[in-house]
């Protein structure tokens, strides 16, 4: 019951949202729901620390197992290990921040918050489920809210982006389905066919079956985390979405994919071994090519979206390298990127709300007008270019270290190329920062330098995310312990 609460709380919040009206009520309710959830997650974390056998990150805690569909041996089976715990924490943080930044959404606010909460619910369910069926269930639960959020509250060519996102993700989950079906019928478990992660992991899947179904599952999940060349939904989707939705998308939803890929790789080690070359190739392409593509973007949101493609490449790289350290790095990168990109989108959203443009060329010197937002922007940027002391560095250096432990020469080359991205990132981040934050003032329109700086809610939102980033960047040891003992 401890863990089901993670799903039940948002569910109750969502249902309650349907019955209240007026922006004031709605947002207060949504926020309080999210905050309660955050507190609960933190408490859960503490409990987890206490209960978990020392140094054993693989230990599954808070297990619950109810038979759901008897004939198919489908269970409602949930539980968390260190990794899942980290992802849940990320979700809780981003959720609160996301609700805070969309404090004054004008149209259809009830539906807006309802969908946001639903999205977070999907993420929670996904991360805690130990049964592949429930995993898939929650994966798809999270798709539709994205479509509606982008399509209704978005900007620019929102319908197109929403449709593109929905269809690509749908394709992804279709592939995932095939993979799961294959696993279901081919895992020689004692309990006959089953979706149960733990049992499947125990009963090794025959190698040829792995080789057949791993690509389906991996690519399927990969699409969710911007696997090249299926990343095209990322730029359009993120940049059309409203601020909060972008934060949820990049901060949480893309992590579903990474987490899924990770689970699949752990579930089918032989296949992962066999295909790791391709994974590395795609990941490296995503990293480098994403970075270069970012340089040419003129819209802040596009810049961040493309950089997300590049950064999520690190997740796949870490998974593909298959060394313990690299995988640890992948998880770190997921958490770090979640916080960092959410912060970045929040900052961009705040700028956009005031200047009504996201074109780099039209902005300039905003540090003078809105120091707080500018600072947030700078911190996000520095985190994204991997500045030590912020979470990005911890994640990336771990990935590099782990990747280098893979002695194959080609993998080494891939690693070096990936390292090169720290320069490329610096280039595009500094170009954007130098133009938007520094330089002569521009883009403030008629208001000149009387544009308001961040409000309390925005300050709070940014504060939460920055705290996360700093804590992870300055004291990485505890999260390392959390995810890898």
């Amino acid at each position, binding site marked *: 019951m401890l863990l089901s609460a993670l799903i039940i709380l948002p569910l109750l919040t969502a249902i309650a949202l349907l019955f209240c009206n007026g922006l004031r009520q709605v947002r207060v309710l949504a926020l309080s729901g999210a905050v309660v959830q955050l507190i609960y997650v933190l408490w859960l974390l503490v409990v987890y620390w206490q209960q978990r056998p020392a140094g054993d990150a693989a230990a599954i805690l808070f297990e619950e197992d109810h038979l759901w569909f008897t004939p198919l041996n489908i269970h409602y089976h949930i539980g968390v290990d260190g990794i899942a715990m980290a992802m849940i924490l990320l979700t809780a943080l981003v959720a609160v921040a996301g609700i805070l930044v969309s404090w004054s959404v004008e149209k259809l606010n009830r539906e807006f918050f309802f969908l946001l909460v639903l999205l977070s619910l999907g993420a929670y369910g996904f991360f805690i489920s130990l049964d592949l069926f429930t995993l898939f269930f929650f994966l798809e639960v999270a798709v539709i809210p994205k479509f509606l959020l982008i399509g209704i509250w978005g900007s620019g060519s929102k319908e197109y982006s929403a449709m*593109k996102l929905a*269809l*690509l993700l749908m394709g992804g989950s279709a592939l995932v389905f095939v993979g799961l079906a294959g696993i279901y019928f081919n895992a020689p478990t004692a309990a006959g066919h089953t979706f149960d992660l733990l049992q499947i992991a125990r009963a090794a899947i025959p190698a040829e079956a792995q080789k057949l179904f791993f690509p389906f599952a991996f690519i399927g999940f990969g699409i969710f985390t911007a696997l*090249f*060349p299926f*990343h*095209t939904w990322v*730029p359009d989707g993120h940049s059309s979405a409203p601020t909060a939705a972008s934060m949820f998308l990049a901060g949480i939803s893309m992590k579903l994919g990474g987490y899924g890929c990770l689970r699949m790789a752990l579930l089918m080690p032989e296949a992962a071994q066999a295909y790791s070359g391709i994974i590395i190739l795609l990941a490296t392409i995503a990293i480098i*090519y994403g970075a*270069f*593509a970012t*340089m*040419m*973007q003129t819209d802040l949101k596009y810049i961040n979206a493309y950089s997300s493609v590049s950064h999520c490449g690190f997740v796949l790289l870490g998974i593909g390298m298959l060394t*313990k*350290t690299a995988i*640890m790095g992948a998880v770190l990168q997921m958490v770090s990127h979640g916080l960092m990109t959410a912060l970045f989108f929040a900052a961009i959203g705040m700028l956009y709300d005031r200047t009504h443009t996201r074109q780099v060329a039209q902005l300039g*010197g905003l*540090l*003078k007008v809105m120091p707080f937002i500018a600072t947030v922007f700078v911190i996000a940027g*520095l985190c994204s*270019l991997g*500045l*030590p*002391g912020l979470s990005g*560095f*911890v994640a990336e*250096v*771990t990935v*590099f*270290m*782990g990747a*280098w*432990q893979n*002695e194959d*020469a080609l993998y080494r080359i891939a*690693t*070096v190329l990936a*390292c*090169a991205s*720290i*320069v490329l990132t*610096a*280039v595009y981040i*500094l*170009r954007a920062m*130098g133009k938007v*934050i*520094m*330089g*002569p*003032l521009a883009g403030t329109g008629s208001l000149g330098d009387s544009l308001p700086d961040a409000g309390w809610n925005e300050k709070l939102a940014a504060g939460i995310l920055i705290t996360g980033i700093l804590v992870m960047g300055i004291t*990485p*040891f505890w999260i*390392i312990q959390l995810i890898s003992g």
Partner: protein
Amino acid sequence: MQRPFTIDDIAMNYSSYIALIPLLPLAAFVMLGLLGKQLSRSAGILATLIMLVSTVLACYTAYNYFFVTGKVNGVYPPVAAFHYNWLPFSPGLSIDMGVLLDPASVMMLVVVNFVSLMVHVFSLAYMKGENRFATYYAFLALFTFSMLGLVLSGNLLQMYIFWELVGVSSFLLIGFYYDRPAAVAAAKKAFIVTRFADLGFLIGILILAFYGGTLDFNTLIYQLTATNSSPLTQSPQAGFPGISLLTWALMLVFMGGAGKSAMFPLHIWLPDAMEGPTPVSALIHAATMVVAGVYLVARLYPIYLLDVAVLQIITWVGAISAFLAAIIACTQTDIKRVLAYSTISQIGYMLFALGLAGYGHTTTGYSASLFHLFTHAFFKSLLFLGAGAVIHFVHTNEMLEMGGLRKWMPVTHLTFLIACMAIAGIPPFAGFFSKEEILLAAWENNRYVFLLALITSGITAFYMFRLYFSIFWSRTRSYPHQHGEGSWTMKVPLVLLGTAAVLVGFIPFADFVALDNQKEITIPLSFSIAPVTIAIAGIALAYLLYYKYNPGPQKLALALGGLYKMVKRKFYFDELYLFITKRIIFDGIAKPAAWIDKHLVDGFMNGAGRATARFAESIKAWQSGRVQSYALYFFGGIIALAALIVYWWT
């Protein structure tokens, strides 16, 4: 080479307070960063006081290390005061946040703290009235913290971390006047160029860490030097054809150092970095950060000693940098840029001094280099602060618009003269001694380098006094705003640094900072003749050309013609880099990448959608609306199925 041991009882009496030295500035940064607005004016004083405490602690540590603990069987032992397992990668491999005391780090500790303190004091007056006064001090504190962390770090990646942090704080300080496009551009340039170098550093670390099995300096050095079986030293395998992994690793690490120390061809960022406030230039781009490269190589010196090739590369990079920078310095008219190039030149000295051991005769270059680093810190920061005072007075960087300033600013004049003497290597000023040691090392190891160094020292003397004369003598001008030389907070640092620049040369440096098995350095008087004469010659030339304002220099420039122009344009390095970034990186790679993504990858997805739609449109005639054709298709379906069964599945 026996395992460098760390004595715990020694560690004990440091660990208590030593951490405070870097942490105090950090505290200052956080404090000023969060509530800088509230304490606007007092922010500077607060930061300065904190710096003072930290400096006192640093000096006490030095005293403690050199005189209380003293030598243990002939050498000053490296002391790992304490370390905390910060980021464990895999068993054995982890980033430990720690403090490693050895002669070099202790020396740097003192230098960084002292110069930083001076700059803090100087800025009180210099930056008065800036509306981001508190922010300025916050950044200064951040830089000091990072630099101290870098100096004290006992772990490769810890060093890398602070390496990056100094980089970013230098970025922030160069871009302090953020609304000046030039400043922003310079800041970006500085950061990106050094980042590019750091890429090499990072990969080098990866290689070393993987084969050394550790990131801890002492252990690493022990691993790689003790066991020759280490895969690094066996040449080609796993490495790139021909070149052993060790060479790769060391060269890449050096690349990082070269970037930070603005060696050719990565030097281009330093002159532009002068866009920052002058005290900042004094602290970061003269005394401390830019010598990090030297310090890095010194840290890993035992490993570098394993690979002659890299050392020789270092030698030549250093020597050439020293020479070219000196030449360029002669043609610059912006006083800060002149100083910047002289900095490059002097760091070149330090680096080739380190590299000289590659020629395998003596390793005295090590302590010589660090000695020069030590002295250079004082007189170069003094020069910059002096320049700062001048600029503060005349409100321009152009030496052509100055002259005769000795009347208005005697203190500055005197200290500046001392500094010039020192850098020119005139006895008994600090620069003389260190430079002599370097030249001696060069003489012992490689005569060509010695020759180059000798000439360079002459040029150095020339351009420094060119600067000196045209600022303080030349033709006397009248300056519109006749405010005085500046408050005592500006004078005190100048005086203190001046005295340092006179005295520090007499410290028997090699006794403190030296390789374990290094022989005494004794400079025969006869050796000093050549350098000194050349220096004096340089000064004399400068005197002729610049003591009184005369058309001589222009004539000379015209006479040299194209050559002069090329030098004046800094050998067109900036243009080259501009070409590489704009034409090759942006137009050549990034544009195509973006295009591909938009038109090929994305286009494929949309194309698939459109194709489906078009196909659907093309088959609509099937649904013709005629019931008879429906029946026909019905029957056709039956026939088809029957046919399938008959001919396909049986």
